[in-house]
């Protein structure tokens, strides 16, 4: 077992760190407060090739491995989770889904612009009444012969207003339940698509989240991904990959909170000494460090298994569950270590605390991950 990153992985990690520290960190508090989309930083991520970085170069991607991609998300999330989620949805769900299950026409037309970073991708699965229970899709995709007619509402869509391509999951044959579900590539400017207002979120406020309404939206038949009825399986496969991205993001959030707490604890004095010298604080830091190290091993292993083309669904569920939960625990303690300063925005940890919460909820709640994990281990 080799725990050493390659030279190239270290370079990629440093590139993401530089972008996050030198650029994104400068206006992250302001963007969070105003819920402003990070146009400038998204442009820089495009220039640096982070969008589409794992796509095969023959489809204009960067051809990087999953571990490199995890390192990028982790570094970004230490300072700005909004950048990480924009990237994660684009790469893990939209690009990966089309690359692995789309046909050559779809890859040529839709994957290539996404891999070049020219068009951002979004993934439309959740609905007002179908979150964790994704089998109950109310959005209908009626088969009209040479096209599908989509009607319904999708919720909590990351990059809804900034994406150009939507991967839409919708029900074609309700009587077949999840086996009647299809996945489609839908161009955002297709007539009949309207957006709900920008969601006023607790955290990751700089990312762009809306509901999306479909009213008699015509989608060409050739935009269906895979065979008729493949949509649910497609979505679940994409989420297996998505979980690695969100785990990496959660890990980054935890690390961002930990490194700030470590610095603060060595500087802040109480009762005549730096608070790091008080066991109450030192032990908190020790526990944070252990959790982060464990989380890192899980998410790096998930990415490595994926790179080795070995099954990674179980380990990615474990990584997502664990990283998200420890991100919440670590950020909670980080606010506590900072005391009053942790409760104001300048010290960043209150923002990381708010951001951590979402990692336990989206792309499969911690409870759903436990279902995935328990089913897998019990069926062995």
């Amino acid at each position: 077992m080799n725990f050493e990153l390659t030279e190239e992985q270290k370079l990629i990690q440093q590139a993401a760190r530089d972008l996050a520290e030198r650029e994104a960190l400068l206006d992250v508090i302001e963007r969070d407060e105003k819920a402003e989309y990070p146009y400038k930083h998204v442009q820089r991520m495009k220039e640096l090739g982070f969008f589409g970085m794992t796509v095969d170069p023959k489809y204009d991607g960067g051809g990087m491995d999953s571990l490199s991609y995890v390192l990028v998300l982790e570094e970004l999330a230490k300072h700005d989770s909004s950048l990480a989620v924009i990237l994660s949805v684009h790469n893990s769900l939209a690009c990966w889904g089309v690359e692995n299950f789309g046909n050559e026409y779809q890859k040529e037309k839709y994957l290539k612009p996404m891999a070049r970073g020219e068009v951002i991708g979004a993934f439309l699965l959740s609905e007002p009444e179908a979150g964790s229970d994704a089998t109950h899709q109310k959005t209908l995709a009626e088969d009209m012969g040479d096209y599908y007619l989509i009607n319904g509402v999708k919720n909590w869509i990351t990059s809804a207003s900034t994406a150009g391509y939507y991967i839409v999951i919708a029900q074609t044959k309700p009587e077949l339940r999840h086996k009647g579900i299809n996945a489609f590539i839908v161009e955002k400017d297709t007539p009949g698509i309207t957006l709900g207002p920008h969601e006023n979120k607790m955290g990751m406020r700089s990312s762009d989240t809306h509901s999306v309404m479909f009213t008699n939206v015509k989608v060409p038949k050739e935009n269906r991904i895979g065979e008729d009825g493949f949509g649910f399986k497609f979505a679940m496969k994409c989420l297996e990959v998505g979980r690695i991205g969100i785990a990496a993001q959660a890990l980054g959030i935890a690390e961002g909170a930990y490194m700030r707490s470590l610095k603060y604890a060595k500087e802040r004095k109480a009762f005549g000494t730096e608070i790091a010298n008080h066991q109450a604080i030192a032990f908190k830091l020790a526990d944070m460090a252990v959790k982060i190290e464990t989380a890192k091993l899980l998410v790096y292993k998930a990415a490595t298994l994926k790179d080795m083309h070995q099954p990674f669904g179980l380990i990615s569920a474990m990584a997502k569950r664990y990283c998200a939960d420890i991100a919440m625990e670590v950020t909670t303690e980080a606010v506590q270590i900072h005391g009053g300063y942790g409760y104001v925005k300048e010290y960043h940890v209150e923002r990381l605390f708010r951001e951590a919460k979402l990692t336990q909820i989206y792309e499969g709640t911690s409870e759903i991950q436990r279902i995935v994990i328990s089913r897998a281990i019990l069926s062995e």
Partner: protein
Amino acid sequence: MKILVCISNVPDTTTKIKFTSDGSQFDATGVQWIINPWDELALTRAMELKETTGGLIDNITVINVGTKDTEITIRKALSVGADHAVRIDAVPTDAYAVAYEIAKYLESHPFDLILTGIESSDYNGNAVGGMLAEMLNIPSVSSVSSIEIVDGQVLITREIDGGKQLLNVPTPLVAVVQKGIAKEPRIPSMRGIMAARTKVIEVVSPANVQPLTDYIHFDLPQPKGKCKMIPADQIDELIHVLHQEIKAI
């Protein structure tokens, strides 16, 4: 026109410096290594010149005197856009030895513009650039804050006391660059990192020159003493401390 950028491999600027217990060596355990920040700015300016002079500059090479461990640093230089890299396989013992090794290489590989950072951020020697020019018998310009190439002429601005000096310097030359030469170093793109995979680092056997200096001992600065704040209106307390406690008066 060909540009050579000399790069040093230095500890990350946030490194907590430690020495071995006998004080004879720098303790490199766990240290992250980076391109010397001044050299990285020199490389950034070289890239800018290449991009803005319409094909005038056909090659940017980076050169490093170091062991194989420095290759990650060299690879970064290639991923931000250097065309070629040379590593002279020797431990960089002192400024003279480094300058000598590079000068030896340049005898058979001429360049028009040679850039060095004003100093390395670890040993702060500030000597390689000048020595190198002397060994090559070519002009060297220090404290360079701007380099422009206009109609094939190299125009250099250097910082002088109370102002700036503009020079037109014949090539080949060594420019020792400092703050202002470029805004900030570039972050390598995925495309650049991918392209660097196929760029070869040319490893050159050293001339094995003897250094002119030797390090005897390293010491960390004395830790700061405890600071006692005395409010400005408590003169008696100040006198008491100075007289009784630290016996300074």
